[in-house]
């Protein structure tokens, strides 16, 4: 089985935010929640870099470890998913996540944050594949489901598939690491595989 990962080549990211928009549209993510975002470091200064970031689907994910109701599970492809049915909206995964991935539809409403939402790697949720229950709708402004299940259709996450500079890569970890390595060798520089050390406890030696 493949071990799905994300890799953002910051030397290619042009901060166009198309991945953010694609994600919101593909999954019908409600207002206020951004499963993916582009962060620019040292904005406006020489050497600034932009990184597209979402849930990194960590190895031994900290969100899953701290969840008091065990609502997280890892798929055979290494994608970290959760059940909104079980989630109690306590906020622990959000404290533990190194990448700010978990988000809540309601903020600070006497602690009733609502069900957590995060990037699903376009792999849906625990409901049956490609059903309306899995996709979900917006009841009372809350997103009850998980959005698209492109993986079940044999496709990769839309954010990476439509990235115009191919900065954002999604797919089997070994393959995308190889693509990145070849790029770095050819062009001769790299600012790093952002988040890999933290998420997967590994570095791509180039």
């Amino acid at each position, binding site marked *: 089985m493949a071990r799905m990962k994300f890799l953002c080549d*910051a*030397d290619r990211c042009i*901060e166009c*935010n198309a991945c*953010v928009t694609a994600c919101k549209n593909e999954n019908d993510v409600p207002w*206020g929640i*951004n499963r993916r*975002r*582009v*962060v*620019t*470091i*040292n*904005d406006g200064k*020489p*050497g*600034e*870099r932009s*990184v597209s*970031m979402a849930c990194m689907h960590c190895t031994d994910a*900290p969100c899953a*470890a*701290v*969840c*008091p*109701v*065990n*609502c997280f599970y890892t798929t055979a492809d290494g994608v970290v998913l959760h059940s909104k*049915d*079980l*989630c*109690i*909206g*306590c*906020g*622990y995964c*959000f*404290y*533990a*996540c*190194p*990448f*700010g991935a978990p988000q809540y539809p309601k*903020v*600070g409403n*006497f*602690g*009733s*944050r609502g069900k957590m939402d995060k990037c699903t790697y376009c792999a849906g949720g625990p409901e049956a594949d490609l059903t309306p229950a899995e996709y979900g709708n917006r009841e009372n402004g809350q997103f009850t489901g998980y959005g698209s299940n492109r993986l079940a259709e044999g496709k990769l996450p839309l954010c990476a598939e439509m990235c115009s500079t191919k900065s954002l890569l999604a797919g089997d970890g070994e393959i995308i690491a190889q693509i990145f390595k070849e790029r770095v060798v050819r062009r*001769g*520089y*790299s*600012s*790093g*595989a*952002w*988040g890999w*050390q*933290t998420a997967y406890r590994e*570095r791509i030696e180039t």
Partner: protein
Amino acid sequence: MVTGTQFRVFASALLLGLMAAFMSPVSAQQQPDSVNPTQQSVKEQQLLKELSRIQGRTSLPDSKTGTLEQPAGRDWRQFQQVTLRWIGAIAILGMLATLVLFFLIRGMIRIEAGRSGYTLVRFNAFERFVHWMTATCFIVLALSGLNITFGKELLLPLIGTQTFATFSQWAKYAHNYLSFPFTLGVALMLLMWIAWNFPSGVDFRWIREGGGIVGSKHPPARRFNAGQKAIYWVVVLGGGAAAVTGYLLMFPFYATDIAGMQTAQMVHGIVGLIFMAIMLAHIYIGTIGMQGAFEAMGKGEVDVNWARQHHSLWLEKEAQKGRVPGGSVAPAE
């Protein structure tokens, strides 16, 4: 369709460009063969070495999304899953074991002179109302808090994932909403009992003589002895700390960032678990640990002989005010 003005602008721009090209021929020739734009760019490894978190800017209206990476979440996880559980297990099981052992050795502390049949008021109706309101909230808060820390190991295997999640959801609501009457109760306790809870000289003797709990002496005490004063300050300070950190978590980003919330959760967890362990001792001494103690908070009146044994100075003062039935009070032996 080029107007005269546009042409003039274009021409002068072209001229400036040409001038610049001719005036700096040297730098153009020194252009290196391969360009390394990363030479001065930010690098992840270097940022992680220098900073505890990598912060940037996003074009989203929510500025919090500017945090790219905070590896500290991994450390918090270690605390949450390992350290806090050890602290809780040692504090609570250790206290339970101590109390069981103490009960086996010492048994119930009796009223030595027997009941006199006369009683005097120890806590009025309002004091008892505040105590029991706070106590009820505390028990629900403690159990729902324990559920968050230990539930998935202890309760989940017994009742199943779905039932446990539903239960935990309600437990969380109870934890959040009952925090308000609990905080009110702590605030009222702070105000209504603070006058009797400052340390005094009598307390040193009480502590030296083991409070009469250890040993057979009966050190004099005013309305509250040193042990009760300690409980008072545990409730006021511990309850206060639990309330403040709890509200920080309940209202995310109102006053803290994510690092602040991690710290708040750590303080909340440690304070909560130690608070529970100390309250076990409080419950013990107020029930099976001491004869005649429960009625102080139960019906609000205590036996005169109980008061003489445990709060001699308080009893004398109450007698002077004429609040003790059964006439004058003999001094404690």
